């Protein structure tokens, strides 16, 4: 489903990604772990299409199509979803309106009928209840005045509504307590099916206990240094990144 080859990218002239090769087949969940500044968030932004990141080499194919040639909204319509590490506040934009606009934009792009306000609210209420979100979160402005945990849950709500084919979770677990962590993991697990994949960027083994990955990759210095099964996450938890980065040096 997702094929990244030789991907290099820079921000304001500074190279961050230095040749990433990664394949995430349909139906699999892959975790990316790595020390701070290793390029994890850059990778997620490049995949979602942020303009201030410059791709200097390599390619990304999504279902065979050239993902890097697509505008961010086209990537979303094709099924790519990025759960932001720091979800953006939109003062003056009502959360329910935002969610409905996004959902209908994607449905339109996919040739599906749009949902009216009543149909949408019914769906959104059911989903937010499943995520144990207070109902007034739909009425508030997008992420404005939300706690860290509420913002992350709002990302998961968007993911649940938009039903992506590839979810990229950029440290969605950071700053969450155990209960919120379970909710996030359950939210992703509920989407798991043969045509769904996820790329889970995390610092912690904790999330991966509930959201068990098929593969774990260690990213450091803009390269994937090691890949393995779920046991690699446990190894990192006990031994840290030092051994791996030292071995690669």
């Amino acid at each position: 489903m997702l094929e990244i080859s030789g991907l290099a990218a820079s921000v304001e002239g500074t190279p961050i990604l230095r040749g990433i090769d990664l394949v995430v087949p349909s139906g699999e969940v892959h975790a990316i772990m790595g020390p701070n500044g290793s390029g994890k968030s850059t990778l997620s932004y490049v995949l979602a299409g942020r303009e201030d990141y410059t791709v200097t080499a390599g390619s990304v194919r999504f279902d065979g199509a050239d993902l890097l040639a697509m505008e961010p909204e086209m990537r979303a319509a094709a099924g790519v979803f990025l759960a932001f590490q720091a979800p953006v506040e939109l003062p003056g934009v009502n959360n329910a309106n935002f969610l409905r606009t996004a959902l209908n934009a994607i449905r339109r792009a996919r040739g599906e009928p749009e949902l009216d306000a009543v149909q949408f609210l019914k769906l959104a209420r059911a989903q937010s209840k499943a995520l144990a979100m207070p109902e007034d979160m739909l009425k508030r402005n997008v992420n404005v005045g939300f706690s860290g945990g509420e913002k992350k849950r709002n990302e998961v709500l968007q993911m649940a509504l938009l039903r992506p084919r590839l979810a990229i979770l950029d440290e969605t677990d950071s700053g969450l307590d155990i209960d919120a962590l379970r909710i996030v993991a359950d939210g992703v697990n509920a989407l798991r099916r043969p045509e769904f994949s996820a790329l889970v960027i995390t610092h912690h083994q904790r999330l991966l206990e509930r959201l068990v990955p098929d593969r774990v990759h260690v990213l450091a210095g803009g390269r994937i240094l090691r890949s393995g099964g779920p046991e690699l996450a446990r190894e990192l938890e006990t031994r840290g990144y030092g051994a791996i980065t030292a071995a690669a040096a």
Partner: protein
Amino acid sequence: MTVPMSRGEAGFLGRFEAERASLPGAPGPRAAAAEAFRALGLPGASSGRRAEAWKYTSLRALAEAGFAGSLSVAETDMAMVPRLAATRLVFVDGRFRADLSDPAPGIFGSARAPEFGPLAQPARDPLVALNTMLAEDGAAIEVADGDDAGVVQIAHLASAAAGQAIACHPRHLIRLGAGARLVLLETMSGTGRYLHNPVSEILLGPDAALSHLRLQEEADDAFHLATLYAELAARARYEAFTLNLGARLARTEIHARLAGPDGFVALNAAQLLGGAQHADMTTVVRHDAPRGASRQTVRSVLSGRARGVFQGRIEVARGAQKTDGYQRSQALLLSDAAEIDTKPELEIFADDVKCSHGATVGALDPEQLFYLRSRGVPEAPARAMLVRAFLDESLDAVTHKAARAALDAAIARAWEREAA
């Protein structure tokens, strides 16, 4: 040395000379206003005085234009005038149209004579001099002590006849007695090239409350120059909200004086401008009594070469202790050539007051834009959403439902025109 008068100035004075005998009402104030206009000239015209109050707005284009007197044509496109209230006074080219209006007791579109109230300053303000000199008509609204007059709409429609640029100078007088209440919805629209130069005098008795919404949707080629004076007795409330969308050049000048203690004034505005539009909000709030509060927030969205101006002046007299004044300008610039000029002025002679001002200017936040696009919303609607959100925050001050809906619809129309 005498500077030759511009075509526009000479035209207005010539019209006054030709029509002075037939203009309604007492001739004294008009003759004095004509003298004042001759002396002051139009700001920005070669003969006009350089006034600080007109630092950012020049009326040169107006001075160089020629305008005929107002001509009401029989055919009026009422589809351009939204119906916002059961009581509606319709003015076409500055003249009251009884056939199109639905007045209520105590509320007149006075076809008799414009009432010159006590607040206007024709000797100081050139456009007010022009209005006083040539005013033919205007709304007269009087709400008796303790009455709630509900909602009244004043609709002004300019229907400039083909090829003929017209000028109209309506003169409105609004009086609310002690404890009286009114919601006043003013809509201003038109077609063609014209000058709409209204002057409103607003007198609020003790405990009176006036909510005043102004929707300025004048034609693309119009000049809109409105001057409002409000005076508040003790505990009175005047809450004005202006939405500037139309006109090539618009200026809204509001003078509000808190004459009695514990008054409240809000002079808020939002403007959405594009092309070469210029809109100027100029306010003077004078606190003459203790414990008054004033609030002003102007939000501007500017694209193309549009220019927005907010000059806000707060004056606090010596005895006006515990005054609480606040003004804020927030601008969103959608192009490099757009410009906002903000000039706050505080003049404070009391020692126990709280007065503040602030200004912010920015572009659309690329992170917000990316967030929306990453959720599937294409760039153009994503930009529209963020602009709307920026304006909506100021529109939240408008609690009257039908008025809010009319403002929302007007913004949507303006944005579509902008995007087209």
